[in-house]
């Protein structure tokens, strides 16, 4: 679980061009779309969908599915594991 979260952080930083951030800067429970968290926006959400497919082979058919899953690194890791187990 831990290395998945580390990987996710690296992938997010790369895929979303979060240049000024390092893996240490992203807490597991930081709210990704909150201004106090990572302050991601709707386009970033779409890139997360691309990221899930590219790095984890998981397809989302619409952005609504991502709303719950993308809340934080924790929820993303949970979602990935759930989909992979299915």
């Amino acid at each position: 679980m831990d290395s998945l979260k580390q990987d996710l952080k690296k992938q997010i930083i790369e895929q979303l061009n979060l240049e000024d951030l390092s893996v240490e800067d992203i807490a597991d429970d930081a709210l990704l779309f909150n201004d106090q968290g990572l302050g991601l926006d709707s386009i970033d959400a779409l890139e997360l969908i691309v990221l899930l497919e590219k790095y984890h082979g998981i397809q989302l058919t619409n952005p609504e599915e991502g709303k719950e899953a993308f809340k934080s690194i924790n929820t993303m890791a949970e979602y990935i594991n759930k989909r992979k187990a299915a």
Partner: protein
Amino acid sequence: MKVITAYCNLRADECLVNGDVVARRDAGSEDSWFKQIYRQQELGYPKFYKMDVLSQAGYLASELIKRADPDISATYADDEIALVFANASSSAETDRRFMQTYEAGGSPSPSLFVYTLPNIVLGEIAIVNKWYGENMFAVLPKFAPGFYLDYGQILLASGSRALLCGWLEVTANSTDVFLFMVEERESGTEFNSENLLHLSQATSVGTF
């Protein structure tokens, strides 16, 4: 009279504001030239990293012009500064990068796609400044002072009180960016064809 009150030349290796060098490219750095300027100038606007090259260039040059002319935002109402930009290659460089994301087995990148239009840079400048004024982006064969003079005249006669104009030609192999501010003043470098051509070619070894 209409006067060019500030200008910025952004080239492949150097960046000038009002004719003075403010940044030189560090060829040894891993960072792109635009990132070097962004960091060096300490602009503190992380959205910069998401921008494509055209938007980065326009954003940087407009921020440098604002620093040279700090009263701009206070002098004008939020819809009185018109943005008038042009280039020759539209968003070709970003278009190319977008195509790369899906042509070799990957999927089309949404964050790149939204930049595959040349006018997005106007949106970025409007957002950071909260400017609700007129916008224009034209694609022309080369830098044409007449375009800015003619269209600028129209805008200044119909509600706009100042112009931020730009020639933004950024390709994989070249950077030719010239932004300038036009305002109504008693005196100064007149907004005319000769001066535009002259200033657009300013380099660190002097204008010619």
